[in-house]
């Protein structure tokens, strides 16, 4: 029983093969190539074919026929796979308009439901927004939404207020071009469900979900999330660039990659009885999932990313947040130019030290921003941290990747670090419903790349004074002991699968997992055991000079590479350029010039009537 999972990110297309080895599901092979939705291919199936070729090279099995068709089910010669699942995080997110009764009740629940998929919230309309019917109608119709998501009212409650919103939505949708009308998802007062179906008949396709807020105390967003996943597939298959072909590969169509983060963090939290966090900083979206045995939080920002959405990310976090992670002086222009260029060339790899620090400052700022939004706080503790996305995993050094992951969220306590460079999380999330045993077994068999375990001291530490003392005990080996000074990191070799007992003692003012002294069992990995005595909340220095000392040192300590010193000249404050045009009102001569050429191009005779156009 083999499973082939293909995940389409904005920059990378990843293929994963899961198969039974001695009756147990394991990750057998993986491959990665560039997503090909851009010039010149403009068809994502081209990238998929390349990824499958690479997977064939890695596994010795073929997955596609010579004419490019994916082979399923698995054949006698072991070509193909029994189950094929397709996930995507790439491409334009769904544009959503949300209509709700009250902003702090139904609308808030709707936004939580939307946070599970790749959605760009373009407008919200609610009963208390003060808009007239005409304004609501224009707001909805001109937003060009892919989905109109209507919520509001409790089951058995009043229907009249919501009827006004439904009327506005129906009128607005009916005014839109027939070929581009949105899907309507209704998850409000159940008494109106049938009426919504009737009203939108012949106007737009409608999906009915259970009321997102059945009563004032209860929230039920799962049904709505399921409908949103259907909408995601609906639009994935309607997109150009070959997505329509992908939708036919799997009975479940194209699923959102991020679903896997919910499934996997929740599963691991149940198994470990502790909190599990997953962070994926991609080119076009940032995903943060946190699950404990009793509670889980999940957030996607489809407008933040380190590639396609780098400019939008910078706008969200602000230049000063990025500067807080830079070990040199940089003008606003330099940072903004870098982000703008990343948007133009999302796969770009930092070419020099300045670019590298700006890239990682953007990454850290994005993760900090998400953690704040998710209420994780400045120094979250978790049993496991799963790290996805090329920006974190493609450093070429497991230590560097681990450091980025720890710093991005400011992790505290004892935390196991797992890397997911091949999109395994997305694959497992997609197969969870049909092959739950595969998920369990792949995770048990170590499907993720294990970076190791970090012991991170919380609280204030005294710089360069002993802050952490760790005794390490391994079977058949003499006891070893390390003392790590405040503000420093020490990496202890502890190989993949190796276990060790640690006696941890915190010196000075800090603590680990809320204790001054504790014993834990840890596992090693490609990095080993990271003893992080930098204190929490993590401060990269109060000024540029401090950061110029600390940031390169931390990288050197965790990677074992030589310290890359920041040139003294980079610490000299720089003048910000001042533009004549800044704040210039768009009036006068410039406006007249714009008006002169800003008109639509002159009409040429052509045999199309405007009436035809207007009537759609």
């Amino acid at each position: 029983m083999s499973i082939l999972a293909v995940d389409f990110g904005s920059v990378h297309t990843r293929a994963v093969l899961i198969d039974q080895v001695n009756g147990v599901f394991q990750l057998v092979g993986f491959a990665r190539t560039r997503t090909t939705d851009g010039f010149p291919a403009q068809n994502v199936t081209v990238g998929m074919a390349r990824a499958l070729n690479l997977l064939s090279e890695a596994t010795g099995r073929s997955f596609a026929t010579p004419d490019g068709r994916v082979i399923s089910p698995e054949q006698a010669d072991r070509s193909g796979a029994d189950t094929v699942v397709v996930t995507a995080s790439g491409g334009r997110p769904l544009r959503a308009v949300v209509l709700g009764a009250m902003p702090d009740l139904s609308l808030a629940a709707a936004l939580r439901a939307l946070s599970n998929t790749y959605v760009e919230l373009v407008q919200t309309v609610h009963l208390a927004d003060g808009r007239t019917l005409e304004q609501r109608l224009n707001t909805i119709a001109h937003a060009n939404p892919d989905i109109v998501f209507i919520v509001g009212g409790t089951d058995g409650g009043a229907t009249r207020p919501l009827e006004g919103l439904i009327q506005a939505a129906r009128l607005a949708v009916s005014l839109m071009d027939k070929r581009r009308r949105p899907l309507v998802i209704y998850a409000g007062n159940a008494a109106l469900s049938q009426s919504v179906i009737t009203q939108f008949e012949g106007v737009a396709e409608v999906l009915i979900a259970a009321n997102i807020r059945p009563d004032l105390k209860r929230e039920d967003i799962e049904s709505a999330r399921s409908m949103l996943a259907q909408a995601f597939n609906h639009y994935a298959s309607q997109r150009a660039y070959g997505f329509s072909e992908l939708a036919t590969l799997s009975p479940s169509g194209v699923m959102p990659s991020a679903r896997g983060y919910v499934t996997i963090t929740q599963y691991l939290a149940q198994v470990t009885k502790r909190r599990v966090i997953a962070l994926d900083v991609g080119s076009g979206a940032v995903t943060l999932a946190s699950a404990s045995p009793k509670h889980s939080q999940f957030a996607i920002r489809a407008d933040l990313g380190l590639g396609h959405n780098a400019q939008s990310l910078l706008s969200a976090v602000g230049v000063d947040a990025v500067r807080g992670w830079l070990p040199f002086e940089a003008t606003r222009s330099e940072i903004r130019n870098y982000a703008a260029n990343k948007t133009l060339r999302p796969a770009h790899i930092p070419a020099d030290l300045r670019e590298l620090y700006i890239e990682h400052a953007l990454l850290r700022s994005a993760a900090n921003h998400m953690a704040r939004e998710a209420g994780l706080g400045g120094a979250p503790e978790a049993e496991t941290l799963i790290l996805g996305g090329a920006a974190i995993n493609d450093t070429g050094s497991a230590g560097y990747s681990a450091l980025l992951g720890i710093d991005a969220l400011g992790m505290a306590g004892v935390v196991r670090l797992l890397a997911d460079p091949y999109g395994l999380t997305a694959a497992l999330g997609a197969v969870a419903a049909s092959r739950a045993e595969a998920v369990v077994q792949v995770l048990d068999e170590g499907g993720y790349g294990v970076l190791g375990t970090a012991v991170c001291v919380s609280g204030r530490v005294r710089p360069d004074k002993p802050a952490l003392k760790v005794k390490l005990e391994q079977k058949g080996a003499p006891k070893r002991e390390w003392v790590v000074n405040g503000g420093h990191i020490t990496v202890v070799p502890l190989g993949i699968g190796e276990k060790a007992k640690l006696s941890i003692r915190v010196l000075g003012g800090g603590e680990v997992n809320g204790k001054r002294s504790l014993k834990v069992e840890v596992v090693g990995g490609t990095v080993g055991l990271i003893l992080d005595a930098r204190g929490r909340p993590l401060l990269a220095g109060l000024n540029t000079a401090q950061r110029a000392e600390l940031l390169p040192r931390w990288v050197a300590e965790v990677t074992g590479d030589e310290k890359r010193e920041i040139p003294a000249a980079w610490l000299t404050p720089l003048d910000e350029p001042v533009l004549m045009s800044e704040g210039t009102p768009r009036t006068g001569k410039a406006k007249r010039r714009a008006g002169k050429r800003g008109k639509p191009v002159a009409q040429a005779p052509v045999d199309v009537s405007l009436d035809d156009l207007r009537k759609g």
Partner: protein
Amino acid sequence: MSVYYPEQRPALKLSVIQREVMLPEDASGIVAVQTDQRVDIRDVIARGLVPGEFVVVEAAHYFGLKDPDDLTALMLVNIDDEVDELKPLAGLKSGRGKRLMSPTAGRVAAIADGLIVIEKLNQVIDLEAGVRGTVKEVRLGRGVVIEANGSRVQGVWGNGRHAIAAVINEGANPLEKTSSDVLGSRFSSAIAVVRRPLTEEILDAAAAQNVAGLIAPSMSVDLLDWALFQPYALMLVEGFGQMRLNRAVAQLLQDLEGMQITLDAVQPQVWSARRPEAVMNVQARAGESIARSSINLTLRVGMSVRAVGGAYGGMLGNVVNLPNDPILLDNGLRVPCALVELGGDAGKLYVPLANLEVIG
């Protein structure tokens, strides 16, 4: 090293051009040509309407109707009728009694729920082919893909405008120092090419000299709003920052001096594959081969490439080696690289594969 498919950003004197010509996202449109149809540069291949503002007239309320369906009997206009301001929309056909006048000129977009919705006049867009060629694909309601032979320079950013005009390279006299007389400057109504990073002064000088378009290597992102505001089409070839025009593009644009080109300075959208570009029809001479962008082009030793980013940003070079293993860069990253012989003093450098673009 396993096969690597590099980024392609053509700057070619003679190639097969597949050009997407699309209406803006918010426009509804009709494509006016068919697959395999020959089109000329100025032919309108699609017409679009950007939706206008909707005005809601509460007609049933105006007439005091309890049942909104009763409005039907009073309607004097139908859906899709064009109405002038103050033209009667509803009332008794006998002409007696109250009459409901249109508050605005426009089109009757809907009559429902006792309401009349008027759409104010919308903006009409006529989309020109921009290149002489053959329609290869029609995207219903959106636009077409045209195939032609010619020169093509793809850029990275545009200000969303479009121009068809002759190319004039800046040469020794900077654009901002060029004087205008009553007939304008030599850049008037032309597409000017500058090889230096743009400044505010150059942007303003281009507008003052009434250029139709401007092709430049780069500018600071601080100028972005100002560039978007300019009345002419503007395309950046390298990116944001202080990069100079690479010599291949500079030479190609020099060779096109005085010729009419189409500058389609589309503003890249995050999730769109369209790129800004300058194209010009060129016929192949006898024996001259026509390049075609290959989907499956792989990076090979000897290939000409452009390096992007860092100190070598925009420099051209040749691939001299493709190591199997990732290379440790000076910044500490260890990534798959190509060894590239760059021109001038740069010598040979390892450049991340992701930072290479094939232009030829």
